């Protein structure tokens, strides 16, 4: 089969709608947490004198007036809720993606791996009927058993790329010494561990990410991979603290696991 035909076959294939809907709900919940934080941060940026503004460009919009704050904050929260319940999910995902771009050009205080990751996921959700099941739309008679596969495939590939590049980045002496865990942990029990234990934790997290980057794709390894992934993401929260950015990142990653549940 030629590359063109293979690509055409891939682009016209479909996947089960329920795993996509489950993923949409998880990402919607993560987006809601992130939206509430962004709305608060947008307010703090202009009302807390101790916050250092960091507009990345000379032409960055300020978004400082009350109507602007209400509009951006309100849209973020409304779009997140719409994504969770499955009401015009593609439009909601599109709004979240556009607002992510707007916040990125507004101020570096909104930059973060979790914002970028969830921004990519909402971008891809604009391209798929994620509300074809488990949604307001489905309850109104818009239920569909299958949806376009290629944006779903990109979401799965993106998760693997995140794990792969994160694992490669950790292949350095500073991380493997346990220094990053020791210096960044908020858990006193972990902070007081010996260097050997901290180094072992660092190596284990690297190995888990490297393994997850491919194991989710293999049916025989999938259940084990999901268990390892959930434990690893939970450990990240225990180790580095339950703050919004980290919760959003980990919830988004685990939500994408649902896409690997399609048995076809």
């Amino acid at each position: 089969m030629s590359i063109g035909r293979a690509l055409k076959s891939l682009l016209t294939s479909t996947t089960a709608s329920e795993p996509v809907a489950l993923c949409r709900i998880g990402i919607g919940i993560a987006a809601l947490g992130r939206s509430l934080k962004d709305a608060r941060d947008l307010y703090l940026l202009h009302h807390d004198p101790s916050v250092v503004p960091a507009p990345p460009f000379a032409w960055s919009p300020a978004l400082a007036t009350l109507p602007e704050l209400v509009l951006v904050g309100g849209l973020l929260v409304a779009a997140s809720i719409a994504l969770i319940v499955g009401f015009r999910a593609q439009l909601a995902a599109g709004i979240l993606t556009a607002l992510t771009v707007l916040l990125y050009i507004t101020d570096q205080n909104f930059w973060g791996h979790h914002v970028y990751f969830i921004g990519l996921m909402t971008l891809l959700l604009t391209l798929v009927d994620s509300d074809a099941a488990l949604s307001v739309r489905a309850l109104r008679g818009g239920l569909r058993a299958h949806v376009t596969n290629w944006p779903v495939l990109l979401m799965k590939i993106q998760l693997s790329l995140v794990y792969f590049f994160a694992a490669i980045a950790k292949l350095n002496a500073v991380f493997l010494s346990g220094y990053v865990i020791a210096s960044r942990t908020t858990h006193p029990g972990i902070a007081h561990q010996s260097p050997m234990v901290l180094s072992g934790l660092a190596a284990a997290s690297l190995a888990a990410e490297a393994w997850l980057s491919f194991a989710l794709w293999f049916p025989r390894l999938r259940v084990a991979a999901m268990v390892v992934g959930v434990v690893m993401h939970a450990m990240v929260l225990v180790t580095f603290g339950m703050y919004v950015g980290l919760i959003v990142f980990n919830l988004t990653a685990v939500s994408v696991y649902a896409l690997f549940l399609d048995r076809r």
Partner: protein
Amino acid sequence: MSAERTSSLKLAASAVFFVSYLIVQVGYPIVPWFTGGDRAFTWRMFAGYDDEPEFSVVNDAGAARPLANALRSGPGTGVRVLGPEVDQRRFFPPWLCAHVSDARSIVVRDRVTPQDTVVSCRSAAP
């Protein structure tokens, strides 16, 4: 426009998006493999590349006052940021010079640069 033509264009647009997305998402995170350091959009979180610089404000009398970690500071602690990827080296010196009344210079120190960097408030003023 016929339905067949619309379908072909949609398929072509999907193909362009699919391939472009993969090229960017596979290609860009490879850049820091060659340049080193931390870089946004490359999934190098918690890997030991973010140097978290420390800042001290030197006043007119020459006394240096170190600042707390701005990322982990709460409300009312003087100086803080709301996200982990703020380029503190770029934004802090001008802000400190403008907001600390007797600041003469800002000293920047990090784990990877062997010598302190001193930024004069005369040159850093916004």
